């Protein structure tokens, strides 16, 4: 099956599904967390990139309901200097 594909000029019309994409999920729904605590800076760092920006939910898989709460918690933590507003090499 691989031989005819190698002979043709256009090898693959579609990318081969070698690696099955891992389905993203909302960790709050899965773990049953209802409230995002702004006091827990280490936990909130999972939702930040190394510059301290909030990651979009298309990357983290968080549901919209909890993305809002995460954003609120991160902003509260920033205000209280538990998290930085801007930084480099946080991780």
């Amino acid at each position: 099956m691989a031989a005819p594909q190698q002979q043709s000029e256009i090898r693959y019309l579609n990318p081969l599904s070698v690696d099955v994409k891992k389905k993203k999920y909302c960790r709050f729904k899965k773990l049953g967390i209802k409230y995002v605590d702004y006091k827990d800076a280490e936990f909130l760092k999972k939702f930040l990139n190394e510059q301290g920006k909030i990651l979009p939910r298309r990357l983290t898989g968080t549901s919209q309901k909890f993305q809002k709460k995460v954003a609120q918690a991160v902003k509260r933590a920033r205000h209280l200097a538990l998290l930085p507003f801007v930084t480099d090499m946080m991780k």
Partner: protein
Amino acid sequence: MHPQFTKNKKMNNYETVFIATPVLSDAQIKEVLGKFQGIITENGGQILNTEEWGLKKLEYPIQKKSTGFYFLVEFTAEGGVIETLETQYRRDERVIRFLTFRQDKDAIEYSAKRRAKLAGKAHEAAAPAAPTKPAEVEEPVKTEEE
């Protein structure tokens, strides 16, 4: 269930955190905390929980200071108290940052659990061979009207 629903008045659960300057002595720190607890109770609020997080490093400098004393106070009060409290925060030079917000129902649940956990830990630390009596989490709430 919750003590915030007394007669006529709408009581909410609030949570406030403030950061005091690191230059204070132990006695001064107690005084600052006592002052703000006093403001809450004098205005008809009821303190549910107080935590001292101690001297913590700030993630970014505030007023050229890199550390601060953190305090958390949870209380129930009417909305008007918040304005008084925050005015006092602004006037007090020893407070370099503060945050106050109303707890929604999930936050109330979460903080009750958190208090129970912390009380349990403190209880264990105080008496390792503790009896089966549950840790004191909430003091019984008494109102004068009833």
